[in-house]
């Protein structure tokens, strides 16, 4: 999070300052990419499309840092949904590849136990959660969005988002304990 300097940075970027825009990019891109890795297999491409749309809409954006993040993650989710629809329309995907892609991403517990706590290992654990749980953890906890913003993005009520976030965190802690990631 940029914090207090966000307003100045955003204004400079909106005025055409490339350095200020790069500051915004570096601040959000890692979280954005990790979120997209959870919800789509084409995370890199979707992230690129998201930033292109942000570049187009940046001069018209009004709001603070939380609103900026909510806007960006909303765009990202829409692009991911579009990518999913496009992917589902492709008729030439061999069945064997589909079956491989649909297999659970959770790694073997023994493999995880060998890894230290790292972003990558936690990402593997997050991906093993149900999609809805993983997405809400990424948006609510990792991206730091408010419950109301997350509710708008995923189409739920803020109360449902809170309940789902708690449930997902408990499940994640359970997975981590069983995998030995936290030891």
């Amino acid at each position, binding site marked *: 999070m940029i914090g207090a300097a966000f307003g100045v940075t955003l204004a400079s970027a909106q005025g055409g300052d490339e350095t200020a825009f790069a500051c915004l990019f570096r601040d959000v891109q890692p979280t954005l990419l990790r979120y997209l890795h959870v919800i789509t297999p084409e995370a890199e491409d979707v992230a690129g499309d998201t930033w292109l749309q942000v570049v187009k809409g940046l001069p018209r954006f009004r709001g603070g840092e939380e609103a900026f993040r909510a806007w960006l993650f909303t765009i990202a989710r829409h692009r991911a949904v579009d990518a999913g629809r496009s992917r589902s329309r492709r008729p030439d995907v061999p069945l064997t590849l589909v079956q491989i892609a649909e297999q659970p991403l959770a790694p073997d517990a023994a493999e995880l136990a060998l890894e230290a706590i790292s972003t990558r290992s936690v990402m593997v654990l997050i991906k093993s959660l149900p999609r809805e749980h993983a997405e809400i953890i990424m948006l609510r906890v990792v991206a730091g969005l408010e419950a109301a913003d997350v509710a708008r993005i995923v189409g739920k009520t803020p109360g449902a988002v809170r309940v789902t976030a708690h449930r997902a965190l408990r499940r994640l802690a359970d997975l981590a304990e069983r995998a030995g990631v*936290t030891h």
Partner: protein
Amino acid sequence: MPGFPFPGRPGGEHDEPLLDMIIARRALPPDAPQEMHDLARMLAALAGPAEPGELAREAAVRAAFRRAASPVGVSPAARRPMRHRRPRRSRASSRSRARLATALVATVAGLGSVLAAYTDLLPSPIQQVAHVAVAAPAPHRTGSPPSTTTSRARHLHATLQPTSRPGPRPSHSAGTAQRPGQTATPRPRLTPFSLPPGHGTCNPAPRHSPVPSPTASDRSWPAFTWSPEQSCPSVVTWPSG
């Protein structure tokens, strides 16, 4: 694992304040269960700084930003001359235009049909229908519709001369009864308001028919005969009575 409730375990709802603290990225109390601390550490690692490769697209995104920020760095569509751009119309606007055009065409066609019916330009069956429906003139019995000029002239004549007026009516030279003893010599006919080419004078001498009131078959245009020996005023007037 005492003190840390997991799903399905007793006391699962008591960890909510701690979970809310983790979500809000606040520091946990020291006496919180170790599992909660581990979970907070995991999520902190997930929100950590960029790893190698995660900023690989920075150059491409910055290039897109430069293009957008540059005054000339606009989309190819915007660089096109204005005359190549097609105005964007909404679907609703196109629909309303189509409706308007359809209504206009229908109105013009309807008015044209009524006008054609009243000028007796329609084929006989259709003219008969128009005669019944909109009180248009009855169709000719001869079958084929009259020529446009004759029909229009007849309509004009009917307009100028009230049908209730009694008296002899001029009759058409063709297809009408001849006076006894009159020979049918072909004469050049003139339509009203016209002069023969190359002649400045004419003599509108209509041949009046003895038939007092026209029927549907002999509603005809008064024939004008022209003889070069006679002269008339330069303005051709309509024969009265």
